[in-house]
């Protein structure tokens, strides 16, 4: 009864639902005039520490909020609430990355027009978040000096999908004999031309360059993916 199989061409992006939702989010962000920055890194590279510091530094100049993804706890949200008002936790359970739907739900009752800058801290993971567009305007990938210079070569995809690389924990660089040139070379090999900022959330070195860069980027016209 069944005929021989036939091949039907379709052209369908696997993540099209996420991509569409991310595009809608990006349009909403643009209409509301809020600039959205996501942070990705392996667990413990210093995303929350950088956000704590950043929020307190830019708050006088901008209205800021943050979404924080975490598998199980709300520790990071609690830390961030100390420095500012609007923080919301997204607990992903067993899911190892944020997606556009989680972001949309988390924002549901926020008035985006009241914000200038929105940060999204992704789940600590250098692999899975790379495939999911969250509607962000800028994706920053963090690597700490204690992780070693070769992280970009081991996780090229996440570096490749990022717009900015931040080398964190610069205060520990000497102790671990961090090779700055090698790190920059490796970043450039997987994402030619990407901007690199080195900083320490502990001592504050490099923070001025980052916040200037951020406020400047937020003022530039929106990029459209």
């Amino acid at each position: 009864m069944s005929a021989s199989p036939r091949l039907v061409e379709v052209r369908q992006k696997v993540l099209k639902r996420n991509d569409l939702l991310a595009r809608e989010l990006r349009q909403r962000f643009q209409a509301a005039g809020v600039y959205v920055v996501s942070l990705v890194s392996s667990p413990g590279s210093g995303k929350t520490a950088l956000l704590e510091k950043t929020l307190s530094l830019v708050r006088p100049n901008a209205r800021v909020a943050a979404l924080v993804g975490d598998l199980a706890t709300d520790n990071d949200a609690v830390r961030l609430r100390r420095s500012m008002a609007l923080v919301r936790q997204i607990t992903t359970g067993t899911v190892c990355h944020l997606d556009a739907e989680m972001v949309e739900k988390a924002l549901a009752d926020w008035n985006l027009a009241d914000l200038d800058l929105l940060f999204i801290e992704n789940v600590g993971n250098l692999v899975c978040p790379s495939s999911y567009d969250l509607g962000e305007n800028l994706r920053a990938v963090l690597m700490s000096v204690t992780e070693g210079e070769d992280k970009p070569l081991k996780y090229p995809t996440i570096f490749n999908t990022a717009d900015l690389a931040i080398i964190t924990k610069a205060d520990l660089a000497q102790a671990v004999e961090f090779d700055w040139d090698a790190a920059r070379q490796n970043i450039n090999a997987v994402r030619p031309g990407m901007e690199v900022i080195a900083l320490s959330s502990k001592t504050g070195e490099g923070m001025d360059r980052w916040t200037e860069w951020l406020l400047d980027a937020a003022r530039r016209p929106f990029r459209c993916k």
Partner: protein
Amino acid sequence: MHELSIALSIIEGVEEEIARRPGARVTAVHLNVGPLSGVVKDALLFSYGLACEGTSLEGSRLKIEEIPIVLYCPVCRQERSAHSMQRLCCTVCDTPSAEIRRGSELEVSALELSSVGADL
């Protein structure tokens, strides 16, 4: 490991597609995967089998075609293959380029269908 999420998205998309073709049964799904998609082939094949259980795609095969990275070389002024994901440089003149033209794909390209009598 987000390959299970990816597998579920593939199934969701394919089920949508065949809902428009009554009587068709999917025997294989053809998928283009670029190295920059962030998806690991073996993990995806494994997850796909699991995710298909209990769906109309149960028993179907996932046929993955790996798409090589192609970038636009500003010096050669044309599309060129890249050395590797770890070295995004033109294979002809060695110029680095972030202008990626292929290699990030994660898309269903075709379905193999067997009909159960009805029109496709």
